[in-house]
């Protein structure tokens, strides 16, 4: 799993690439939490091919940690398989997910 900061001005954009499973979830969560600053953050998901049970928990923990710090986190462009998993398990209700980057940016006034 690679975690890349693609933009960091008034908005932070973090791109993920790889699978979030038991091997990567703790590290991914820790890496992203470390990157959080007091600014809206978009996490780009199109290159995340698979999210396992522990991966779901990582996504939720990131969102909860951000919320506790007053930071808005948006997950954008998850692939259909990942969206399905989020829907089936109900995790989608606890995460802020939007279909496209344009949607995410528009919400933040861009």
């Amino acid at each position, binding site marked *: 799993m690679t975690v890349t900061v693609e933009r960091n001005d008034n908005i932070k954009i973090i791109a993920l690439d790889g699978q979030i499973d038991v091997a990567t979830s703790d590290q991914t969560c820790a890496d992203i939490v470390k990157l959080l600053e007091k600014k809206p953050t978009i996490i780009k998901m199109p290159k995340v091919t698979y999210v396992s049970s*522990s991966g779901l928990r990582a996504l939720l923990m990131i969102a909860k940690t951000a919320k506790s710090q007053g930071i808005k986190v948006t997950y954008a462009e998850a692939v259909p398989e990942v969206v399905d998993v989020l829907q089936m398990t109900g995790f989608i209700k606890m995460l802020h997910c939007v279909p496209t980057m344009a949607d995410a940016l528009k919400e933040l006034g861009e």
Partner: protein
Amino acid sequence: MRIDLHPTDTYGDFKIRPGLFLANGAHIVPGGINFTIYSSGAKSCELVLFHSHEREPFAVIPFPENYKIGNVFSMIVFDLDYENLEYGFRVDGEYNFPLGNVFDKNKTLLDPYAKIISGRDVWGEEPDWSKDFQYRSKVSLDDFDWEGDMPLRTSQKELIIYEAHVRGFTKDESSGVKFKGTYAGLREKIPYLKELGITALELLPVFEFDEFEGAREIDGRKLLNYWGYSTVGFFAPKAGYAASGKYSMQVDEFKDLVKELHKNGIKIILDVVFNHTAEGNEHGPYISFKGIDNKTYYILTPDGYYYNFSGCGNTLNCNNPVVRNLILTCLRYWVATYHVDGFRFDLAAILGRNQDGSPMNNPPLLESLAYDPVLSSSILIAEAWDSGGLYQVGSFPNYGRWAEWNGKYRDDLCRFLKGEAGLAHCVAYRIAGSEDIYDRAWRGDCASVNFITCHDGFTLYDLFAYNDKHNEANGWGGSDGGNDNHSWNCGWEGDFDLPADIKYLRHKMIKNAAAILLTSIGIPMILAGDEFGNSQYGNNNPYCQDNKTSWLDWNDLQKNQDLFKFFKSMIAFRKRHPVLMRMSEGIPIGYPAISSHGVEAWQFDYSPENRFVGIMFAGKNSRRQRQLHLSGNQHALGKSQRLVACLATKSKLAGRSQYRFGR
């Protein structure tokens, strides 16, 4: 930092240590996974580890001699990828059939405490039968974001139960949901359940079972174990009912269903099958219990054969202390970690049988369940009979705590509704809470679960559309399914070329049934689909029909709006009248809470010819006091009834709270 959570030994490349002996099954601990298993007769035991779905294990680790206390083996294995892991046990011991020992060290066995079971991840996907190890234990993450949810605290008096099959509820195209036939699909239908107004959803078995058990092909059609009354593992939700089963996420998906039901004020009750397992008799497969500790888990004859009080090959030895503990732990687990609100126990009379098969007066299992601290707000409903001839409706060992499926209610009501004579006084009892069966002083107001239809038998529509069962498609030459249906086709068998007047009469009959059911004292239960006239085409035992016979056809909801509206109104009516739930106080001037009447007030006719039932409910709550008259008449033509003199608001009451049923 715990000093007892570091490896003490190695086995090959694996770091291990003696485990947590009190934690049955597999649990994630810091750095590793704890595995614990009990067997009274095992000489030795091996832990067998597989990568997901692989045929051959990647490790077989024997429990070392010093990893055993009493008859419990326990070991922590470190550095395992728990998501990509399936595990089982191999247990060695003597083979002595008459003594009940049938150990076979070559069989890899499912953990009786497995919280996830893989092997049947996607419903109906043909299994690879060449694999030795079919049903595989997996480790579960028990954490879940409940967002404050707990089992609902509302009174059991407010229960209106809706009995449904997870798959059948939304599998049909007409359901319109995204994840058809699954927990997630059911969750999508919650707004419908809320609109209908029911307060509890009771699901046919959701513990892992094998839909391919006893699968057959009849006339080119595949028949499966669709209902699932044959448990493989008691702690695991059926993977094939989860849209996410292929990702092993059924635990999260099921919990989310529970959370959403609760958000909408709907309780969840599970139909649980502890009377037998899927291992059958001496010809059945080794899945788990048989190879781990046969004589502990099953009631055996003196020659080592299986007693068959369940009609399904074996009988779980429910009052053995170890099995008792498994059942209790299981139910506590479903309440504490899944927030389930209650249970309906299939063939519950077996849960009161002794280890030799005889019925007990004070069965320790039933007593433990009745007094368990975690279960103390859960509703416990017994199907108070078994296939060994024990019929305990009214006499089930209840500790003032257990409710029962009231089989007498169903039988009396069906016969009365179709017009049989001599039942008026029985029906008066049934409507009034069956106090002739359930002593109110001891059993309270929620002992009787009233139902006219359930998964077993005709649907409500079929009850008035078929004189005879039509089970040919089940492949048993019509010999399966009950013959005591007490049904009446209203003068026309089935639906082909159905005359309009017959259709009208059937709808009227369905409304009669709904009206009585929802105004009876006790807990009403509705079979899913009855509220819109769902038909099973006369099949009264579609346990094997995974097709349109069993799946609800949601097009009927549009076609039969009159029925849906009637059910919905009757449910709302029940909720508006605390007197029907016995949630009101007596009226000061002295009317009894429930009284029966004839054509003349206070003069119930007990003669066998009588076909007229009048019931008056009277009570008040803090806001208002009221009487409610219910009068029923089996005569083809209406009879007029003189109502009991009403209180101050009589004209309003008579107008608002009176329903007459009849032909």
